[in-house]
């Protein structure tokens, strides 16, 4: 993989950091730039105006960038107005034979273009997982689709691992293996050595107009990368036989490790789900504001919000609640992340460790699974 022609074919180039920064700043003319601000494990993705505002040494964020920006925490998906008259037959009884009119308003699809910069491998994998749900599921979500198409994803291989990371067990990190589904991949080559930039998508090849001002990666760059990856792999603290979990957890649904953890520590607060980059559950509620009294016209909005299987109302259906017990809810989370591979052909976890970090009582799905497998 050496030589200009090979790297041209692979679209890999090594670019000095300041040159790359200038390119990102220029990208800001076409895209809203969104990147990690503030360092460590409590960084957050924010809209920025310049490359220099980012901390690309960040370790993790509370909210995952993909879920936060592609699958909004709350959004209006539909609204309808009811005015005095309708032609819906069933309603005429209630209106004393008068006609009512219901007009449906579809909100415009999200149009703004955004560049998500510095997305870690686990979070890129999480976006690929959300794609299976919203882009390729039985129902194609127009809002997600629109935002996905308008989002330019610049991934960044990790430079450090935290005690809670376990992406290595899933092949999700610390270096990104996926070769599609995002636009660019950066590897920081270390102090003063610039970035190794890989252009993954057609879009990236079109936008990255400074490709030739870099130099083709040499064997020593690539071996430095391999060494960096190998040394990161030694830093992981968690271990678990992931392959062995499939259908194995499910056969022990009431294992004491689950019930005891949930009874003594689980608050049913749903922080784990909220910060999970692959949790896709949402509810759609009708919000009937009081403005319905205005001029005989009522606007009813359907709002979609992130929902969570940990909250008591999640599994409430007509006639009861099929996860009324706390441990049944925690089980759903743990199993959906570590078992249930049949659903989307891959595990529901990417190993980012957020659910552990942001759980107020530190509940750790890998520890539960380990205890269950003993």
């Amino acid at each position, binding site marked *: 993989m050496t030589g200009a022609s090979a790297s041209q074919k692979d679209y890999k180039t090594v670019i000095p950091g300041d040159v790359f920064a200038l390119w990102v700043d220029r990208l800001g003319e076409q895209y809203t730039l969104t990147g990690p601000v503030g360092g460590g494990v*409590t960084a*957050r993705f924010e809209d920025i105006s310049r490359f220099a505002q980012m901390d690309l040494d960040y370790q993790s964020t*509370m*909210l995952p960038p993909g879920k*936060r920006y592609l699958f909004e*925490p*709350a959004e209006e998906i539909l609204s309808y107005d*009811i005015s005095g008259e309708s032609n819906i037959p069933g*309603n005429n009884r*209630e*209106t*004393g034979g*008068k006609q*009512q009119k219901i007009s449906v308003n579809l909100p415009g699809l999200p149009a703004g273009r955004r560049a998500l910069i510095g997305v870690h491998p686990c979070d890129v994998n999480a976006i690929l997982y959300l794609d299976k749900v919203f882009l390729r599921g039985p129902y194609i979500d127009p809002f997600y689709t629109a935002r996905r198409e308008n989002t330019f994803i610049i991934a960044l291989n990790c430079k450090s691992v935290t005690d809670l990371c376990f992406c290595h067990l899933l092949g999700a990190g610390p270096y990104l293996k996926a070769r599609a589904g995002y636009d660019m991949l950066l590897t920081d080559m270390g102090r003063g050595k610039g970035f190794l930039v890989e252009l993954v998508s057609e879009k990236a090849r079109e936008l990255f107009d400074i490709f030739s001002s870099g130099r083709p990666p040499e064997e020593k760059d690539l071996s430095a990368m391999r060494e960096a990856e190998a040394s990161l792999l030694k830093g992981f603290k968690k271990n678990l036989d992931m392959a062995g979990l499939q259908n194995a957890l499910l056969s022990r649904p009431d294992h004491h490790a689950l019930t005891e953890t949930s*009874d*003594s*520590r*689980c*608050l*049913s*607060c*749903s*922080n784990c789900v*909220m*910060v999970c980059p692959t949790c896709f559950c949402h509810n759609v*509620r009708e*919000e*009937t*504001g*009081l*403005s*319905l*009294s*205005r001029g*005989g016209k*009522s606007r009813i909005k359907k709002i979609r*919000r*992130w929902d*969570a299987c940990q*909250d*008591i*109302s999640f599994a409430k259906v007509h006639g009861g609640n099929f996860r009324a*017990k*706390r441990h049944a809810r925690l089980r759903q989370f743990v199993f959906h992340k570590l078992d249930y591979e049949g659903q989307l052909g891959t595990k529901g976890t990417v190993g980012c460790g957020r659910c552990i*970090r*942001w*759980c*107020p*009582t530190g509940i750790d799905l890998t520890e539960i699974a380990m205890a269950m497998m003993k």
Partner: protein
Amino acid sequence: MSFYKKRAFRPRTGFFKFTCCTGCGFELAYFQKSLEETLRSFDFTFFRLASSAGSPEGPFDLALVEGAVTEPFQIIELKKIREKSKVLYAVGSCAIVGGIPAIKALSPEIEIERAAYKERFFGLSSTRPNVIDDYVKVDGHIRGCPPGERDLEEALASVLLGKKPEFIEYSVCMECKRGGNACVLVEEGLPCMGPVTNAGCGALCPAHHRACYSCFGLMGQANVPALKGKFRKLGFSEEDIERFFTLFGALEPSSTLI
């Protein structure tokens, strides 16, 4: 059903107050953002805070009741209100979970009376506090101190539409995370009650870098022992922890497990 006839249908509404600060009444009559619509859509035939006219006699399409029950005469009044009202909503933490007036449940009544009224407490009939659900059937709980606007609008709009209101039933943490706030409990070790508190406020306090003090009351299945354990680990004293959980939750069972 009622909505479609709304030009004619302005629910006859009574607003009743028991033991509380009247903050819910103020919210409804002065501060909430749909004030104009509320006054236009509802015929407040009894609402002392809004008008000294009007009669508590009813009948009412809708009764809104704020405050905890702390005196015997209130029980009789409450039952009468229930009888003459089609729909009765409890409004605010005092009526729903006991709220601030329920703090006195933590001490013997005699000590409370002495402290408040010195030697002049003979002739008082103040009792230990209770929530209004203890005495009458309640059709819905508009939680908060004062109520969150989302649940308040949902409740009022439901009366106009003749539908069952759908109230929020999950933790403050969910609203907090959707809002992207830094977590003051996990990041800073502040004694945030969000994980056990019913949402509806939009995570107001964490959004302003404060610990939630549970003014909306505990949510269903709040795991109180688990959060107390967390607070202990953070180094809070038993007395402090007791205070966190009884500021608004003095009447709540001390262990709401499973």
